[in-house]
Each structure stands twice: as C-alpha cells, then as structure tokens.
C-alpha cells in the first residue's frame, strides 16, 4: 500500500515537471499583462477635456497586446511543456511566486482575450458618459484576464481572478441599463462568494505544503507534489469547483448571468460571455483536474449531470425569452455545459473539444452580443416582439446575424461544430447516456435561434421605426468581419488550434491516469463494455 502511494508520488513528480519553470524567452508574458496596464495609465493621463481622444486611443493601444499575442501564437510550439515561462520569488515567507507560462490550454484564451478587447472597445462608440473611465476599466480588465490565464501560482491567480471583478462591476454598474446596480451587485457578490471558498481552498493547500515540506507554497508545480488525503481532496475539489461553477455558470448557479448580460453595455457582455465565463471552465480544467485528480474522477458523474442539465435547461429557457440579450445569455448556459461535459469526460476528444469550445464560444457569442448591441443602438430595445422583417431593411446585418446563429447552432464547417462534436464524441465513450442527452441540445439550439431569427428578421417590416433602420456601417462591418473570418477558419481548419492544444490536454489526461486508477478508454474496447452491459438478449 505504502509502495503504491510513493510510486504515485514519483510518477506525479515525473510528469509534473511540465508545469514547472524553465526559462526560455524573455519576460514576454509579464509584458503582455503590463501593456494594457500601461495603456490604461496613458489613457488616464489624457485630460478629460479631450474626451474624444479616449476611446480611439484605447482602441489603438489595445491592438498592441493583440499583436504580441499573435506573435506568441506564431512561435508557440505544439508540445507538452509550459512555454514563455517566468519565475521569480515574490514573497518568500509565504512562498508566493511570480510564475507565468502558457500552454495549449491557456494560449487560446489569451488570444481570445486580446482579440475581443479591441472589438469590445470599438463597439462602444455609443458610450458618451465618463468615456475615460470606461476605457481605463476595460484595459485593466484585459490585464486581469490575461493574468488569470497565464498565472501558475495560485495566489497570483487568485489575485487576478478577484481583481477582474472590480472593473467588470463598474462596467456593468456605471454604463449598464436601468437595473444595472442590482445586476452588478448580484454579479459581484455571487462570484465573490464562490471565490471565497476557493481562497479557503488555496490557503489550505499552502498550509498542507507547509505541513508536508516545511514551507508554504502556492506554485502549481509545488502543490502537485502534495499528498492529499482522499477526504480533504474531496472538500478541496468542492471548494474550487463551486467557485468555478458559479463563473461558468453551471446550473443551478446561473441566474446572475442573464441579469448581468441584460444590464451590461455591449462591451461588458462581449467580455463577460467571451472571456469571463471561461475562467470557470478554464479553472476546472487547469486546477481541479490537476490538483485533485482522484476527486475529479469521482465527481465525473456529478459534474457531467450538472453540465447536461445546463445544456438542456439553458436551451429550453432560451426558447421563450422575450429579450434577445437574455436569449443569447441562456444560450451561453447551454453551450458552456458542453465545455464542462467535455472536461469531465476525461478523454482526448472531450478535453480538446472543451478547450477549443472555450475559444469558439467566445467568438460566436461575442459576435452575437456585438450584433444585439448594434440593433440596440439603433432602436433602443432588445425585445424580439419590437422587431420583424429586418432582413428587408438591413440585409448585411441579417447576413452576419444568420452566419453567427449557424455557428452557434453548430453547423459543421463553422467553428461551433468542432468543439461540440469533439465533446460529444469524446464523452460518449465514458458518459454515453449524458452524451446522448447532450446531443439533443443541437435540436434545441436550432429551435431557439431560428425561431428568434424568424421573428426578428423575416416577414415584411410592419413597424414604422423598423422601416427606416440603416444597415451596418463600414465601421460595424469591420468589427464583425474578422470574427466571421475566424469562425470560418476554425470551422474548416481547427487544426490551427487543435495541434497546439492537443499536447497539453494529453498531458493532463496522462497525469490523471498516472495519479489515479482511471484509464482513458480505448475506442473499440469500450464499445464491447457498452454493448455487453446493454445487451441482455
């Protein structure tokens, strides 16, 4: 018994070097975090009297992180090791380190963040009050989001994780619509409550490290060496999972999301759905699976069921939403369920699908919120019943909307399909019943999106306000076109990302296999099991 445990620990340390520091490139990730901060300071320094400068300057500066992230994507190698890693001791007595790095799981999220921020800013021309603060908050938010995805030290991760709440709280609370204060407060308290549990978990982990190795540590690689008892692992898993589940949000913890989205300004919705929700799915994959592998394996069914309930429930509730933004918000609940299902399917397809779906959902849902924002600026309503026949007056707008709808429905050839299909196929071998139920989500997605499209866009425009709407401007098209191009590119050639994702997700799987008795089922072998148990004739 003792031998087995020590063997497991040895294997852990063999594999866990992946997440350990190895200096390679200059401090590029730190720069990536700091550039938006510097940009925020620059914007803040522009006097209030030159208010017309704030937004253009912010947009221009936010292109720098995008360019840098693009470069990192270019040089990113498809390999298991963390890349662009940096390591420095921040506070020795507590064992807090500045340890950042990028792998195939975080890379897509960093890219997505840097893509969506310029678009979110550029979509905010209708924000006229306190533009400066708005731009500053958005840029600080970007720094926080990048920081969260590249941090490998749990303390620093947590600081970023929490720091994000503040700018988002203000973005919703200051620039939102009527019930913005309620929504912002709900968003803040709800997610902060979850974080509190995780903070407790992080402190407990550091304390265990102190207990077992004589010094506290927050570094992921150090914490992987911990020998955690089964009972404690379960509690810790629950604490982390709850924090992340609220962020995702997983049913039944989702009700802050529709409120936040409906009240948030367009930029807030884009970043909330595009990036902030992914903190939850990213955290589950990065921290829950690695730190608590056995508890994760044990929780496969609970997490899978919650994910699938979310898929169906979110879609069903979306069908009858009278508000376009709420409809898209509930569709997120449904789509994020696929990511959680894929994560806990614990198969290659499931994990790869989860990671690429993280990225893809950000693109399509970001675009859908952008589109809803464009019509809201024209009509000052998001109610489906206020529209009708828009395709006649706004054919380009209708075209983009339909394109994104089909991406969201999961039409093969567009990006949404790749993640969903990988998740479904991947989860079918470990959670067949859940995968089948989840697959029925594809029917529901077609229902709620196409029905909404029918009511908003088809028929003859019958309301006077709708007859005079102007179609998209060149500026608006230039925001949507790059997203549409990426949707198509990733739909047809997902390998551009999958190649770089796969080694990292495989490493996570290998680690889970090495540290638990879980075995990833081989195709074929599992089918025998499946049929043998299902066939009593």
């Amino acid at each position: 018994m003792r031998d087995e445990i020590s063997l497991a620990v040895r294997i852990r340390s063999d594999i866990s070097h992946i997440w350990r520091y190895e200096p390679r490139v200059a401090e590029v990730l730190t720069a990536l975090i700091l550039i938006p901060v510097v940009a925020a300071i620059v914007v803040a320094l522009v006097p209030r009297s030159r208010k017309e400068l704030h937004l253009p300057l912010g947009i221009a500066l936010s292109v720098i992180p995008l360019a840098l992230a693009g470069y990192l994507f270019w040089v990113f190698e498809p390999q298991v090791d963390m890349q662009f890693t940096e390591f420095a001791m921040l506070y020795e007595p507590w064992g807090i380190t500045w340890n950042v790095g990028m792998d195939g799981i975080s890379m897509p999220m960093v890219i997505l963040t840097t893509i969506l921020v310029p678009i979110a800013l550029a979509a905010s021309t209708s924000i006229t009050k306190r533009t400066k603060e708005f731009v500053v908050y958005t840029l600080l938010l970007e720094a926080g989001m990048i920081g969260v995805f590249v941090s490998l030290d749990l303390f620093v991760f947590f600081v970023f994780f929490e720091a994000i709440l503040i700018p988002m709280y203000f973005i919703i609370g200051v620039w939102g619509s009527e019930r913005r204060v309620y929504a912002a407060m709900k968003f803040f308290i709800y997610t902060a409550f979850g974080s509190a549990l995780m903070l407790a978990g992080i402190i407990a982990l550091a304390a265990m490290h102190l207990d077992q190795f004589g010094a506290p540590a927050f570094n992921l690689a150090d914490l992987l060496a911990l020998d955690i008892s089964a009972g404690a692992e379960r509690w810790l898993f629950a604490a982390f999972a709850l924090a992340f589940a609220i962020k995702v949000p997983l049913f039944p913890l989702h009700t802050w999301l529709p409120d936040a989205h409906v009240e948030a300004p367009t930029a807030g919705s884009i970043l909330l759905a595009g990036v902030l929700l992914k903190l939850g799915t990213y955290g589950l994959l990065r921290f829950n699976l690695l730190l608590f592998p056995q508890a994760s394996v044990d929780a496969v069914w609970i997490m899978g069921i919650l994910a699938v309930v979310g898929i169906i429930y979110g879609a069903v509730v979306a069908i009858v939403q009278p508000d376009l933004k709420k409809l898209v918000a509930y569709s997120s609940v449904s789509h994020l369920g696929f990511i959680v299902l894929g994560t806990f399917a614990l198969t290659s397809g499931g994990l790869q699908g989860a990671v690429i779906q993280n990225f893809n959902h950000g693109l399509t849902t970001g675009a859908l919120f952008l589109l809803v924002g464009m019509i809201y600026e024209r009509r000052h309503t998001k109610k489906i019943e206020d529209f009708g026949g828009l395709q006649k007056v706004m054919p380009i707008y209708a075209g983009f909307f339909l394109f994104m709808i089909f991406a969201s429905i999961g039409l093969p050839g567009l990006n949404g399909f790749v993640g969903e299909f990988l998740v479904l196929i991947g989860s079918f071998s470990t959670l067949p019943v859940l995968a089948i139920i989840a697959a029925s989500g594809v029917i529901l997605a077609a229902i709620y999106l196409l029905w909404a499209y029918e009511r908003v866009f088809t028929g003859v425009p019958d309301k006077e306000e709708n007859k005079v709407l102007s179609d998209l401007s060149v500026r608006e098209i230039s925001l949507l076109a790059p997203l549409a191009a990426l949707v198509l590119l990733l739909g047809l050639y997902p390998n551009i990302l999958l190649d770089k994702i796969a080694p990292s997700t495989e490493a996570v799987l290998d680690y889970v296999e090495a540290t638990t008795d879980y075995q990833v089922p081989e195709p074929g072998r599992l089918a025998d099991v499946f049929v043998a148990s299902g066939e009593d004739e």
Partner: protein
Amino acid sequence: MIDLLWLIIALPLASAIGLHFFGRFLKEPLAGWVASAAIVGSFSIALAAAIPFIQGGEHGETVLLWEWMPAIGANLEILWDPLSALMVLIVTGVGTLIHIFAIGYMHGDERFHRFFTNLSLFAASMLILVLGGNYAMLFLGWELVGLCSYLLIGFWFTRPSAAAAAKKAFVVNRIGDFGFMVGLMLVFVTFGTLSYTGVFDRAGDELTTGLATAIGLLFLVGAAGKSAQIPLYVWLPDAMEGPTPVSALIHAATMVTAGVYLIARSAVIFEMSTAAQVTVATIGAATALVAATIALAQRDIKKVLAYSTVSQLGYMFLAVGTTAYVAGIFHLMTHAFFKALLFLGAGSVIHAMSDEQDMHKMGGLRKKMPVTALTMGIATLAIAGIPPLAGFWSKDEILGSAFGRGGWFSVLWIVGLITALLTAFYMTRQWVMVFLGEPRWDEGQKPHESPRVMTIPLVILAVLSIVGGLINTPFAFGLEHFLEPSFELVDIAHPPDGWGAFILLAGLSVMAGLAGAAAAYLTYRQSPESWQGFEDGFEPLWGTWESAYNVDDVYGRVIVAPGKKAAEVAAFDVDLPVIDGAVNGVAKLVRNIGEWTRPLQTGFVRNYGALFLAGTVTIVIWIVVGAG
C-alpha cells in the same frame, strides 16, 4: 483525373463565394450562367474521372485534401468510387439542367444573384456529402445542404409562410441529425475512427449484431429526417414554399436522397442486422403508401409532387432495406430525372399562370404550353411505371427484389404494388387536371409557353426519363456492374431469377400502373362537377387525405404546444421564482443577519458581503484542515 477531383467541389464553391461578394455587380442572367458554368465544370470532371469505372475493374480510391479533426479520424478527403461517382453525376447532371431552367424562372427577381449564390453553395455542399471519404465529411455536407435548404425555402423571406417552412425544415431535420450524431458517436467508440475504409474493413470483426442494429437504426433516424420518411416527413410538403427550381433540385432530385445514399453507403453495417434492414424497408413501404394516399387528394400542383416525392423516397428506402442497393440507387437516379422534370414542368405552369398553384384553376393548358404538356406527360408515364420508360425498370426491380426476399418482405411488396397503382392514379389525375379539359382559369390569365431556357431542360429531362432506365434492365445489368465495386462486401438482393418470374412480376406492376392511370384518366377527363362528385364519394377518406391525415395538427398539439408550455414553465415558473428566488432569498437572509447585528451595520451592502465571505473562509478552512 484523380488529382482534379477536388475541383468538383471547388468550382461551385468558388462560384458561391464569387457571387456572394460580387454577384450584385453582375447583370441579371450572368450570375445564373456563372453558377451553371461551375456545375457544368464539375459534371465534366466527374464524367472524365468516372471513365475507369465504366471500363470496369477499378475499385476507387481516397484522396486526402487536408486534416480537419484528426483526433477523431475525420479529415477532408474524397472517396472516389462508383457509388460516389454516380451520385456526383446525378447531382451535377440534373443540377445543370435545373440551374439553366432557373435562369428563366427567376427572371426579374430582385435577389436574382443571391438565388444563384445559394444554389451554387448547395451544389458544393451536396458534392461534399456524396464525395466525402468519412462519416464526418458526410455529416458536414449533410448539414450544409440543410443550411442551403433553409436558405432557399425561405428565399422569399418576406412571406411569413416561407420563413416558417424554412425553420420547420431545419428543426425537423435536426431531430433526425440528433439520431445520426448519436450513431456517429457509436461508430467512433466502436472503431476509433469515422473513415469509411476504417469502419467497413473492420466491421466484421468489431461489430456485434446488437451494435450493428443500434447504429443502423440511429442512421435511419437521420435518414428519415433528410429523406422525409415517417415520422419526420412533415417538413417536405411545407418546403414547397421555396422557388420551384429549388423544389426540383433540392427537394426532389438530390438532397432528399441523401438518406438513401447514407444507408447504401453504410451497407456493410446494415448487412449485419436483419432487424435494421426490416425496419428500413418497413418504414419505406409505409411512407410510400401513406404519402401516395395524401397525394391523391391534393389540389396544389406542387403539393402533389411533394407527397409524391415522399412516396418515391419510400420506395428507395424499401429497396435499400431489402438490401437491393443497386435497385435503390437506380430508382434514385430515374426518380431524379422524372421528378425534376415534373417539378420544372410544374414551375413552367406556375410561371405561365402568374403564380397560380391550384389545379382547380387550371385545365386545358395543353394547347397553350405544348412542350410542357408533352414532357410532363412523359414524366407522368415514367413515374407511373409504364414500360419502357425509366420508372418502370427501377420500380420493378425494387418490387421484384422485395418479392424475391419473401416473408415479411412479401407484405411490403404488396404495399409497394398498391402504391404503384395510387401513384399512376394521382399523377395522371394531375396531368389531366392541368392540361386537358376546359380552362378553369381566373380572370386575366394569359398562359403561354415558357422561354427556351426553360423548355430545353424539360426536353432533355424527358429524353432521360424515357431512356434512363435502359442502363439497368434484365437484358443488360449495366448499372449493377458499374456499382459492383462499391458493394463488394455485401450481398445484394435481386428479383427472382428467370424470365417467367420477371414477366409475372413486371406484368403485375404494369397492370397496377395502367389501372391507376386509366381510372384517373377516365374520371378527370370529364367535367369538374363529375370528378368533384367522384372525390366526394370517398368522403370522409378524401378529406382526411387532403388534410394529410392532420399530422401537422397532431404534432402541433402533442409536441410543439406542450414543448412551448414546458419552456415557459421552466423560464417563468422555475428559473425566475425558484432558482433566482433562492439566490435572492439567501442574499436577503444575509442582510437580515446584518439587521440583527446592528452595531456592525455600516450602511454598505458590500461590507456585509465581506463579512459573509470572511465567515465562509473560516468555515471552509476549518472543515478542510479538520478533514485533512
């Protein structure tokens, strides 16, 4: 030639992309000619590349284009074998004629170039479907043709009925796709790949009967959606809201046959499960009969053809369920000829009658539109199964194969025979109602023959409807030999051997066809009052058929309405009051605790939050450390 195969897909795709961005700069007919040229190019390449198969001995090969989802063995690759070659030739050949016809039909439409953009996209999608070398690529094409179908049914989107029909088509197809997707998952976990070669080569070793049945039935769900079989056929009649060339191309000749192709392509899997075969054949026969009865009583010229298509697809399912794959594909081909012709002919009539579709308001059009009347007449005889026209040979091979297999399949054979009689009846009824008798037109109608660009495709299709059946007759099984390499792993069912059996079976089906046609001719040749009386004599049956057994109504009441109710309950009775209510309840509780501890009150909700968080942190640390 193999190196150029990708062009078969790329040409229409390039046309779609080009027309999408630059189509609006083209003068009207030009966009149509661009799309037509693209599909002609595809046809030419396919024809040249198919020569080795015609010469015989070639088995086909797979060409990799690029990696798509390698984790599941799904790449963009082309399988070029006799089956896919034949499908490509049907799609591009019939497609070309319909494209050209549409140039005349869509004349004057303000979104003329958009129509051809979508038509080209459809052609590319359909070619992906039939050329794909694995199930994932088939599924890619499968969904893309669904998209195009959605776009083209709803082409005249300002009509609410067209928009609703488009949505209905997509959603109902998605129900089928759900089954198909689960089937694909099952294939993947079984074989670890979705590629045809990977699956078919190992099916014998890896598949149990139970698994083969499961996969077969799940594929059938998908096929029933796309190919409009019971119980998912309800979208196809509504799909007639689309422009008539769309009905001809997508909803008669090509897309709706994808389910037949899927089953034929998966013959190796169906080979291992008699249960799946029987289910496919039974669904097919039942659909053939039910749809034929509905077609009897329709007044709308396109609705007759829509239900007729459902019925004929039923024949194809009967064929592939009987494992008479060649017969099924054969009928797919001949049906593409005569049904495309019938739809285009109907389009020509509708065009001439200022968009009138009610056959009660037609009559006597033969003199005004001789070419349309003649070609539609040929198609009517072809679908009625009158020798030596195309439909006779293919239908007879299906019926003969079912008979030959015996047992339950003999029952299905009888169903098929009855359907043949009904088919001849409703098609003759249509032709007579439209073209013979006295004009019953509304005021101001000035019907005229359609322009050349529309009639020439009709004539070519009429020729094909006459001679198309001759490629596979008991005298020379040309198609069978051509397709053999694609079905070498399975046993193909055949009609019973011997001339005696052939003459007996063919005699029976010809008699059924002639009887149906004669009965309809004698009835509808008379005055409208007389045939109205004939139809009233069948009440209440006739009304039931006319209203298509009220299936839409039943689905509406049993599925749609309760589904919507459930969604409303979930959204407004559960999500808001219960789940969100609980959240707000907890928040309120925290605030109340704050009220009790007044001395701590500072007036900021955030401070309560902070206090609350601190408490939680303490509790959790205590639990974890205690447990650890």
